[in-house]
């Protein structure tokens, strides 16, 4: 390794919260190991390289780009395509770039509904002239431009070619260090996901028995019995459709899983699968009882697709997202 040229790596964030950047810092001292084998050539959160520096690079100059955040506007698309050209390897880092993440929930609404609410309808907004942000606006001194917004949220692989995935909201330190080291030394199969191959239930340490749910409880309505599977107690937990690898961190504080590590391998649509998984363990034998218990399962689409609505089969509410219906 000592004579090998250092890897050139980049980090970028699109429609993200910044948690993935902090997750990189959370590898703590391992960051010193990483910079032994790699030079970071672009990282707006922590370093002063600008877009013009990236545009000046030769194509393929960057060895690996870790791209987090969903794609929601034209600037994010432009930079995703720019970094794809300038990078040998493109990694979708975190849930938002892997599958849309929490910002993906915006696919329940049209862009117009969201914009009208933010700039015209919230109780604290005072906007008598009904001003809304414009792609080009004129100020006293000249013109100012803003990126255009798409009618829906996209995951990274829906707009550029992605080589690998590091899912999680955000990814965990061991997983990150493992992925960086593997990328530096091996060439995993394209499309490889740096997470477990099984579901969360496989690593979860709670006791599991035959499940028969009589009643659904929301997390704040019941103090769960310690040591016992939460789903069994009627608390909706997405463990059965979620990839393992996170260390069961939410379960460890008695809170159910919401699926941030992405859907398990070989599943096309997590929400559909969870309908099946949950229905299988409901203790009802008649149609009326099935209807009744379903009333207490609130917001199924927003819960079962919490982190991957844009990548689900229908991508969101088809009546609201732009381009869904001709």
């Amino acid at each position: 390794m000592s004579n090998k040229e250092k890897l050139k790596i980049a980090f970028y964030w699109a429609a993200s919260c910044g948690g993935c950047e902090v997750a990189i810092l959370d590898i703590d001292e391992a960051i010193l190991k990483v910079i032994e084998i790699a030079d970071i050539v672009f990282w707006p959160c922590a370093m002063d390289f600008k877009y013009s520096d990236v545009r000046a690079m030769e194509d393929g100059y960057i060895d690996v780009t870790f791209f987090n955040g969903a794609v929601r506007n034209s600037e994010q698309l432009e930079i995703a395509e720019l970094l794809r050209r300038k990078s040998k390897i493109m990694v979708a880092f975190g849930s938002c770039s892997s599958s849309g993440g929490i910002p993906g929930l915006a696919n329940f609404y049209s862009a117009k509904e969201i914009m009208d609410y933010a700039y015209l309808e919230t109780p604290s907004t005072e906007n008598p002239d009904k001003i809304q942000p414009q792609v080009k606006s004129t100020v006293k001194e000249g013109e100012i431009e803003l990126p255009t917004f798409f009618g829906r949220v996209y995951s990274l692989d829906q707009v550029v070619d992605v080589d690998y995935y590091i899912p999680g909201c955000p990814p965990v330190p061991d997983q990150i260090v493992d992925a960086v080291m593997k990328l530096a030394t091996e060439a995993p199969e394209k499309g490889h996901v740096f997470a477990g191959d099984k579901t969360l239930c496989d690593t979860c340490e709670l006791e599991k028995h035959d499940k028969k749910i009589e009643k659904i409880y929301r997390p704040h309505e019941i103090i769960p019995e310690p040591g016992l599977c939460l789903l069994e107690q009627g608390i909706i937990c997405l463990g059965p459709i979620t990839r393992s690898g996170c260390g069961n961190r939410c379960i460890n504080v008695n809170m159910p899983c919401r699926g941030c590590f992405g859907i398990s391998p070989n599943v096309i649509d997590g929400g559909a699968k969870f309908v099946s998984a949950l229905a299988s363990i409901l203790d009802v034998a008649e149609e009326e009882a099935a209807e009744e218990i379903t009333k207490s399962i609130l917001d199924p689409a927003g819960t079962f697709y919490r982190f991957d609505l844009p990548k689900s089969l229908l991508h969101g509410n088809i009546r609201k997202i732009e381009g869904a219906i001709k």
Partner: protein
Amino acid sequence: MKKISIDPITRLEGHGRIDIFLNDAGEVENAYMVIPELRGFEKFCVGRPVEEMPRITPRICGVCPVAHHMASAKACDAVYNVEIPPLGKKLRELCYAGYYFEDHNLHFYALGGPDFVVGPTAPAAERNILGVINKVGLNIGKEVIKHRSYGQRIVEIFGGKPIHGVGAIPGGVSKGLSKEEIDELKMMADSCLEFAKFTIKIFHDIVLGNKGYVDMILSDPWKMDTYYMGLVDENNHVNFYDGEVRVVDTKGKEFCKFKPHEYLDHIAEHVEPWSYLKFPYLKNVGWKGIVTGQDSGVYRVAPLARLNASDGMATPLAQEEYEKMYETLGGKPAHNTLAFHWARVIEALYAAEMLVELSNDPDIGGDDYRAIPTETPTEGVGIDEACRGTLIHHYKTDENGILTDVNLIVATVQNNAAICKSIADAARSVITKGKKIDEGTLNIVEMAFRAYDPCYACGTHALPGEMPLTLNIKDKDGNLVQTISRK
């Protein structure tokens, strides 16, 4: 007019571009902080069960997720009208102190600090956390990393994860502390206190010991007289987690003080077409544009503002440093923007003192930390102080607790007007007729926003959509195939 763009702005949380307009003489006419990002939380949370909000809203910001997590939990408590047990409150406060300690240190050492430690016009490749570690030495660098990890570990013990933890729920918290965790917390708290004192010393040595920096801090282009807002306890001391919102005017006199559910009587938001970020202002003074002074409703939030809006700190060492700061700056309120950095390390010291106090509380290991809500959910407001400013979560639900309306006023957004003016003032002071503009010059303009430690992911939670749009569809050779326009 010529336009120079700093694109993107760096060493902060979020996206932004600074557009500087120069007239023919090469002087700065104006500079704009243009925020291009939006996601839409206020709308897409409608339809979600309210108890999921402490798990959804932290994704507004991964640098200050705990602030959202707690404000959201408090709003949920209010929606259900449930009072959380005292131990539940202490545990949330303990987590909160850990978060503050970590986030403020992150900013000082990795985001804003490098400008001072390495130098504002040092080569770009060195102006970052790695350059800082290089400059102060590996041993100190490792201490920085270690104590940041302590802050994260404290949050993790409480919420399962350091980023986007899940411990706070309507009615209290989901898990108590084991004896091993309390011992670990005590050890970390003691170490954090020593480190906080050390950081204060570094600030004195590197920043206050450098005449050039001190002159800059006290100089006019870096001063702005505004109103200041912060949360205070019953003694008018700075409190991050709970209390009433207090606003002081440009002379430091109390202008108003209100409870969370009264915020709409005091705060309104203005919209400009050139940024996705809105501009909050004091309703009872009015929006006069991006100007400051006693007659303008522009106010500031975050560390310096909190200290200005309070009568002191609740812990002794922080109070001592608070007094030193105001002595140096010439009294209260301090209008010097770069003093935000100083106020920040003072708050980190206060957070560390709180960590020691709470982890040694004899009742901290109990098991009465949760109440089950019984009332029908309706509406509630939760306010806390994120590192970057006052954070307001306002929820309305139907009788099943499904959200029907959400309003969020998120910390940094309240500094929007002030930041715009700060960067314009800074640009005017460093870009003058005939002077060569290089990359280091532009970095000094960026320092004007870094003092505020902005979080534009937070500020721009809301999302727009329908605007005049022209699509040029080109084939793979770049030939224009079709143009689609929408007015």
